[in-house]
């Protein structure tokens, strides 16, 4: 049921029955290491290139999801997935390993939100089981968006660190035997561009998009920020989170203890990962591990999960374009 301009409240119950994660080396040394299903021990994951490693990460994640859900490929209606690389190479190439229809999605680092929302729509329209999977890899993102890995550059103080890893979730309409989180609604975000043009400060570029989507969601759903135990954005980092809180507090009062960010949660401060994690795998990895498991254990009842993405490319920045950003909000309750 559509509510307002951007928000959809689901009539059907959409269960997130299982999740699977695979994390990179640095992520495995971070704050959430005990929540990951598998941590790789070297960044190439036994492959000849980092791109091939990212493909293998996704394949591994989807395989272990099918295994833990005890579901065969034939019972899955579609894989919805995306990543950051040109032509969605990791997503498409990993999907060739499965006898399951595939749809590639792109909202930069907000792709996991787009996948959950699209999955919920498909399930409302008759699909039974959908896999949502996003990934990113530090080395592949560095090569595409920045410089060769071995180039001796100094990161600016606003830089973030692309997360290596993949997270995937199984959405289904058939009620599992155990209690599990449900998607109750979502808000599709608009592309917001506040004219910032520093590709080394993505948190600041994305915060207005997160604010726009969150405020639209709360307004259209008719609830206050306190309806949710946690409003968790994708990869705003410390600076983006602070800017988001400043904007939200003008509208709904003190929210700082209720707002967190996957990018701020994943690494330890001493890991020298700039202002926090980023990448399409950041939100999916944190949601499918820590957030999902905490919800299953009853630590969180209602969350508003808001993956955020910056829709820039290296060329767009060189051509003097500012950075358009997007955020999709998904309401998840248990």
């Amino acid at each position, binding site marked *: 049921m559509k509510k307002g301009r951007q928000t959809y409240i689901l009539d059907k119950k959409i269960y997130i029955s299982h999740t699977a994660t695979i994390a990179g080396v640095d992520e495995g040394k971070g704050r959430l290491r005990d929540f990951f299903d598998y941590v790789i021990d070297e960044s190439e994951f036994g492959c000849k*290139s980092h791109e091939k490693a990212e493909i293998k990460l996704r394949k591994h994640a989807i395989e272990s999801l099918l295994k833990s859900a005890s579901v065969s490929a034939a019972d899955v209606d579609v894989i919805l997935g995306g990543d950051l690389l040109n032509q969605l190479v990791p997503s498409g190439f990993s999907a060739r390993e499965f006898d399951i229809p595939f749809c590639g999605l792109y909202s930069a680092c907000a792709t996991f939100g787009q996948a959950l929302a699209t999955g919920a729509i498909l399930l409302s329209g008759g699909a039974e089981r959908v896999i949502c999977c996003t990934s990113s890899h530090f080395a592949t993102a560095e090569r595409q968006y920045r410089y060769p890995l071995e180039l*001796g550059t100094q990161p600016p*103080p606003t830089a973030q660190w692309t997360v290596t890893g993949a997270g995937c979730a199984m959405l289904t309409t058939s009620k599992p035997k155990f209690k599990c989180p449900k998607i109750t609604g979502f808000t599709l975000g608009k592309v917001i561009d506040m004219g910032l043009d520093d590709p080394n400060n993505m948190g600041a570029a994305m915060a207005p998009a997160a604010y726009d989507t969150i405020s639209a969601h709360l307004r259209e759903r008719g609830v206050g920020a306190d309806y949710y135990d946690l409003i968790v954005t994708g990869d705003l980092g410390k600076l983006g989170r602070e800017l988001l809180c400043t904007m939200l507090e003008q509208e709904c009062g003190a929210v700082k203890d209720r707002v967190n960010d996957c990018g701020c949660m994943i690494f330890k401060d001493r890991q020298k990962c700039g202002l926090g994690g980023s990448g399409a795998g950041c939100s999916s990895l944190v949601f499918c591990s820590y957030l999902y498991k905490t919800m299953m254990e009853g630590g969180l009842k209602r969350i508003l999960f808001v993956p955020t993405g910056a829709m820039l490319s290296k060329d767009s920045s060189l051509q003097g374009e500012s950075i358009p950003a997007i955020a999709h909000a998904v309401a998840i309750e248990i």
Partner: protein
Amino acid sequence: MDKKEYGELVKQTSPKTKEGKTILCAFAIGGLICMIGQAFSDVLALLLPDFDAKKIGALTGVVMIFLGSLLTGLGVYDKIGYYAGAGSVLPITGFANSIVSPAIEYNKEGIVFGLMAKMFSIAGPVIVSGVCASVVIGIVYYVIGLFV
């Protein structure tokens, strides 16, 4: 909040580069690299008394380029660069790093279209501006020579 107000807010909130620390680091590590170069130059002059200063300079350059390339290949130079910034970019070892790092990175796409095609992707602008500057300075030098 409009674009201008938001831009101001971002400017105020963003963490700033700790200039004191980064400049000091760049100076110390950049200076150390140059000291190592000087040491090689002195040792070479001692070992090869027949070589004039020009030849010793060229040999020292070769040694430093080799060291920069080796440290890049061993995955050490980028870690030095993390702390040193311009201190490790400016010496000739940094120039070697800027050529070897894309060569390693793009080697996966093959020798011709990967390594060879991309190895000057970062050093290229430096070479182009160097050549252009030398042409301009050459013309200026020639014109001044006509009157002096």
